[in-house]
């Protein structure tokens, strides 16, 4: 019989574990952000070639705002990523739920098919999608790019949500149904909130993948829908312009600031 009172004191071992975990997380964050710090510092580099530090300047920040094609490409990337993420989350979450809920006979086949876009080399996906679109007579542009992005992003959402479903309490849906909810309302009001962490995780992955996608986009894009990676990749030939660093730095600083200040905004709106 363990020597414990009805409400045991917090064991010191657990506190130590928490501290260790926190310290390790800090180290990993340093690892993640060191190249970003370097990138931001080099956005002030005088040399156009972005390789050797020659001096300090704010010139590139000014030039970014004047460079229309680059800004347009950045805008395209964000729009495409946002739409692709929304569609991927919808497709992935609903797909994961249905596969969990019902015993489809072809379940294993469907599951494998879902995972295929993750393994398919990007050039194969790009060229085969292009051939498919061309055969259908479909013009290239935002739609075709988004289709390509959603195809390889939604498996990530689906897998992430499935992982959480495996630990889900089946009594939850039963309880909701017993209380008179339709299956749809039970799904939307009870299950989805429980799945939220995995949906958020999946959505973040999908967004990130879409922002950085190059090869599939190349084969499915038109001039109007060209994304930032395509522009950036071409610039490597003449030296990656510090303008790109400036653009990235602006975006990073904006999002980090938003993240850190977001509860002040939330508190203000309450």
């Amino acid at each position, binding site marked *: 019989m363990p020597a414990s009172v009805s409400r045991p004191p917090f064991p010191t071992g657990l506190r130590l574990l928490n501290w260790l*975990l926190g310290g390790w997380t800090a180290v990993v964050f340093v690892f993640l952000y060191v190249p970003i710090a370097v990138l931001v510092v080099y956005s002030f580099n005088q040399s156009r070639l972005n390789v050797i530090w020659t001096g300090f300047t704010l010139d590139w920040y000014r030039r970014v705002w004047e460079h229309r094609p680059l800004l347009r490409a950045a805008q395209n990337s964000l729009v495409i990523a946002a739409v692709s993420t929304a569609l991927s989350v919808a497709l992935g979450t609903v797909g994961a739920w*249905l596969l969990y809920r019902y015993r489809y006979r072809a379940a294993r086949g469907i599951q494998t098919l879902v*995972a295929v876009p993750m393994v398919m080399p990007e050039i194969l996906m790009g060229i085969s999608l292009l051939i498919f679109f061309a055969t259908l007579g479909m013009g290239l542009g935002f739609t075709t790019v988004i289709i390509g992005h959603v195809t390889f992003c939604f498996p990530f959402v689906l897998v992430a949500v499935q992982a959480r479903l495996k*630990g889900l309490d089946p009594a939850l849906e039963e309880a909701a149904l017993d209380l008179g909810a339709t299956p749809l309302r039970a799904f939307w009001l009870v299950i989805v909130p429980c799945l939220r962490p995995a949906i958020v995780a999946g959505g973040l992955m999908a967004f990130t993948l879409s*922002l950085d996608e190059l090869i599939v986009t190349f084969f499915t894009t038109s001039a109007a829908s060209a994304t930032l990676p395509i522009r950036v990749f071409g610039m490597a030939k003449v030296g990656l312009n510090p303008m790109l660093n400036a653009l990235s730095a602006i975006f*990073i600083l904006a999002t980090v600031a938003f993240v850190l200040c977001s509860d002040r905004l939330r508190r203000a709106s309450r």
Partner: protein
Amino acid sequence: MSPTTLKTRPPALVAAPPEENRRRPRLLAWLLLAPMLLWLAAFVVIPTAILAVYSFCERDEVGRVVYRFTLENYRRVFEPVYLHIFWRSIVYAALTTAICVVVGYPVAYFIARAREAWRHKLLLLVMIPFWTSFLIRTYAWITILKQEGLLNGLLQSLPLGIGPLDLLYTPTAVVIGLVYAYLPFMILPIYGSAEKLENAVIEAAYDLGAGPVRAFSSVIVPLTMPGIAAGTLLVFVPAIGMFAITDLMGGAKVPMIGNVIQNQFLQARDWPFGAALGVVFMLMFAVTYWIVQRRGAQMG
């Protein structure tokens, strides 16, 4: 007895949903799944079929695909040099995945147990570095790791006697680059499955006399296994086909299977052979995944 509410029975007592709970699909269930199935059919099955057709064709002098049936491409795929390259890609991917699990799991766990307000913030902060341009990020790493780079500069300023490290364009730099790129895809799924899940369980474990290490290894890790499995899938599978990072950080000295397939469509202009390589590659994955799923279901 440790306090448990009616709603949160310890999930350890609940495995995958009991089979009676999972209903046999009626028409409605199939209809609801139809959008996803149609999407897969149109944008995965048909493109793969196109590739499969190409893989049985020949190419002519000018590089066009000629619709004459041949098995030559598949014969070539199984030559030792390509099998060796497949294997090398798998090894790098496996190593990357293993390191990501070890490095990323504690982070995911920490974030999952952090205060509510901080959870989403930390998650976003994990992802934000990857919203910069891939090339710029990788060039930043090159600036850090190169001979006269920041890392060596730091090491030499410290009186530790560690000479300048020749890291760039070596397998070490490649692994650093790969782990960097894939870490978030391990952290996020583990977080997704581990969040908010264990408080009652951990308390139960401690009540029953387990120390922190045992609580961790016997209770927490098994519960977060689905997350780890998901992270492994989401890192290992894409990593096999990755070659951009190995090229940039490793000097493109050693070909990965991604390089070889890409080359067939670009430099060699031998689309049928590239398609055959791709089909075999995807088939190997599909078969392995199929078997793994069956074993997973058997182990229940």
